[in-house]
């Protein structure tokens, strides 16, 4: 048993090394990626402008700064791009290489994703710091909430990954799986809290939006980071996250298993 665990650890380390080297080789495109995710900073400019005349809801101007900078940074920590890789590999037969290795292709994708995160964060962090210094509004999470934040980020990352794998696996059957992901992304931008804190939605609608997986994958960890989700609200949010991870994780696992059986191993 510990022998297997040791081997798993070595494999993870090896994938990590090779992925890190790849991520460094792709650092320029990685920077471009980070820049394309600066959307929350655009929202920041918009909302802090609107809040200049007085607070909106319970968000004053500095609150918006803290919120959106956190949203920008936490999105880097939880980012996934597996849907592009996976659907591409299914369509062009690149998946063959992964399937022939004596290790799970899903584990490979997950670690590859994880290994690139530090570089993304290193690229994003200076941007966040500059914005904070210029706009003010720095909020340090309390040490106690830091552990919860870590857990919440891990769940948000897993949720994103599961959604990516589930949608990516649709490429086993249809050619338009990435188009479906664009739809998901559109909803994500509106409903995750990336463009507006979900608590500012009108009463009634807010409760619905805050129960959806979009909020679980970004809005909730952000609120946790800036101290707006504490006590029962924090526990509730974490449970909701775990629930969505379980739901999309099972969906992804089923689609992957059935997809591999339907796979046609494209390419002569």
């Amino acid at each position, binding site marked *: 048993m510990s022998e297997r665990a040791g*081997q798993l650890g*070595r*494999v993870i*380390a*090896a*994938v990590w*090394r*090779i992925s890190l*080297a*790849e991520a460094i*080789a*792709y650092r320029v495109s990685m920077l471009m990626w980070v820049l394309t995710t600066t959307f929350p900073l655009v929202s920041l400019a918009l909302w802090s402008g609107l809040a200049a005349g007085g607070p909106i809801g319970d968000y004053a101007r500095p609150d918006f700064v803290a919120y959106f900078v956190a949203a920008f940074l936490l999105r880097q920590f939880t980012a996934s791009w597996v849907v592009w890789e996976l659907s591409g590999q299914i369509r062009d*037969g*690149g998946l*063959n*290489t992964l*399937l*022939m*290795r*004596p*290790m799970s292709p899903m584990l490979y994708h997950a670690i590859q994703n994880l290994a690139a995160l530090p570089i993304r964060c290193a690229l994003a962090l200076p941007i966040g710091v500059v914005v904070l210094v210029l706009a003010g509004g720095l909020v340090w999470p309390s040490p106690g909430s830091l552990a919860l934040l870590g857990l919440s980020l891990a769940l948000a990352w897993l949720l994103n990954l599961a959604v990516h794998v589930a949608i990516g696996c649709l490429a086993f059957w249809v050619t338009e799986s990435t188009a479906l992901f664009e739809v998901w992304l559109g909803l994500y931008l509106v409903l995750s809290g990336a463009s507006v804190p979900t608590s500012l939605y009108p009463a009634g609608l807010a409760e619905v939006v805050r129960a959806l997986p979009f909020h679980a994958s970004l809005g909730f960890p952000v609120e946790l980071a800036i101290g707006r989700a504490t006590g029962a609200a924090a526990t509730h949010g974490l449970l909701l996250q775990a629930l969505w991870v379980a739901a999309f994780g099972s969906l992804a696992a089923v689609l992957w298993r059935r997809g591999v*059986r339907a*796979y*046609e*191993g494209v*390419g*002569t």
Partner: protein
Amino acid sequence: MTAAMVRVEGLCKRFSVPRREAGLRAALRALVRREYRVVEAVRDLEFSLAPGERVGFLGPNGAGKTTTLKMLAGLIVPSAGQVEVAGFTPSERRPEFLRRVSLVMGQKRQLSWDLPAIDNFEFNRVVYEIDPAHYKRRLEELTALLDVGEVMRRPVRQLSLGERMKCELVAALLHGPQVLFLDEPTIGLDVSMQLGIREFIRRYNAEHGATVILTSHYMEDVAALCPRILVIDGGRLRFDGSIEALRRQIRPLRRVSVRAAALPDDPTAMGRVVLREGGRLVLDVAPERVPEVVGALVALPEAQDLAVQDAPLEEVMRALFGREEAAEIG
């Protein structure tokens, strides 16, 4: 004879492909109701291979040879029938099975583009759980044989097609697979590189006793490498045997050619005349009549350049895959 390394029984693969007429109207109709057509890529294949055999799958494009190879490698799941490779069912893709086989695809790169090949090799060492001492020995052996000692330290994207292919082979062989699947391994390579790769595969097979299964469009690859040939056409097995047996079966006549000062008046009595031009005569002659015909031709005035050959391989293949003649065998 030892137990079979590869055993295939009643193997079938059906694909359903969306069917659609050309044009916008058909495209719109397909949105509402998709029609599928079932393509039988492989039908009722049956064969078995002994450990250490070198076998070539031969057939025209779309014949089902790559589909068969992918079912043996476990990449695609058969629609019906049994496959057993090294004692495993490939489609289950158990790690123990995957560690015993390797697949090299000439048209697909498997090495990471931006890293030197040596990083890829090191990665394989961990993933395939290769013992470090064993790994070092094998790496030295393979890199020396393929002469990639320098090449493997440059990023893969900077390598020529041939250099990259050599590195792909090293990566595929480090874990010492018992069965090596090669899908068009020499495609796009120049002649000397083709020869080098071919020679390497033969040598590797001889020294390590691995079973080698190859598909190739290049007849010469298959002829030079594989003592046994499986001809697959229309998803069916049409021939199983040596290249010589295949040649004799398709083109049983021998080609006899000679140059002489004067040619016989009626050469059609000796065999079918392929060419009669100036002082040169080329005949297709039944094997049992060859000694007699050769005797007669040698006796011609100033006879020279007498040669007896089998029909050229390309001609055999043309005959084999020309639809009207395909019925001749099998």
